[in-house]
């Protein structure tokens, strides 16, 4: 199974056939059920597991990123997303909804926790994810 190809095909299919809200629902299920343990830590006020999760998978998949703290904010700056890079190398048409997996999973992870996670897509294969305490 070619995972990123299938993920891209899945996102494209779900968005076109069932709409963006339904696609967001699947990401919310992922954040709430699959990443339950990360979310439980966030609810307790501890973002460590999420930061480790980001770093572990981006290292494993040879992503280029920086993680830095600025006061109460933790910034995860993605310079080269391994999923986008793979799809580009394979000349696969990337769904315009592809990055919403990151935006929506982050948003759903932060629901009912003391944090907000803001995701800003800064380019094709780059983004900035910021965790901070809600005002």
């Amino acid at each position: 199974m070619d995972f990123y190809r299938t993920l891209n095909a899945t996102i494209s299919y779900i968005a076109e056939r069932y709409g963006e809200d339904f696609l967001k629902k699947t990401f919310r299920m992922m954040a709430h059920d699959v990443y339950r343990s990360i979310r439980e830590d966030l609810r307790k006020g501890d973002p460590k597991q999420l930061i480790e999760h980001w770093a572990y998978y981006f290292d494993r998949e040879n992503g280029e990123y920086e993680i830095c703290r600025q006061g109460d904010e933790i910034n995860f700056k993605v310079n080269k997303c391994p999923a986008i890079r793979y799809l580009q190398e394979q000349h696969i048409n990337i769904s315009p909804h592809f990055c919403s997996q990151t935006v929506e999973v982050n948003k759903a992870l932060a629901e009912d926790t003391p944090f907000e996670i803001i995701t800003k897509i800064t380019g094709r294969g780059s983004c900035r994810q910021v965790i901070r305490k809600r005002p």
Partner: protein
Amino acid sequence: MIPSDHFVRYYNEVFKAVDSLGRDHLYAYWRKLGESQIQKIGEKFRKGGLEACYEYWKVIKEEENCDAQLSLTDDYFELDMKRCPSLSKVLDNDASPFPLYCDHCMGWIRPVMEYAGLHLVFDINSRIEPRCRIRIYKDRFKAELFQAE
């Protein structure tokens, strides 16, 4: 980014969401995924037949660390999966497994094989244990005979 390692867990959630709309929706989705794989491997299987299937799953076996036995005969290619990494990841998960998770394999492989002119037989031993057997035949009649066993 959902890491590639977690894709099957996302997949498991998508199956639940799509199935909630009706089983036909799920089958249509799997078929669509199969069509997206045709671009990559359908032509390879059509030209290379059973040997190409063997080569493809040999790579998958290594890449995905499958505990599986591959066999190639004049009549068929067989994948005897002893421990499926995909279902294993879904079972090792805070979310519950979708009850028909195993069926997605048949769902996406079948359109690829139809395109390639090959005939798939899928023997799901158990949907809660990560093992199964897939045979791909050149001859439809022989596939049907095996299916009837």
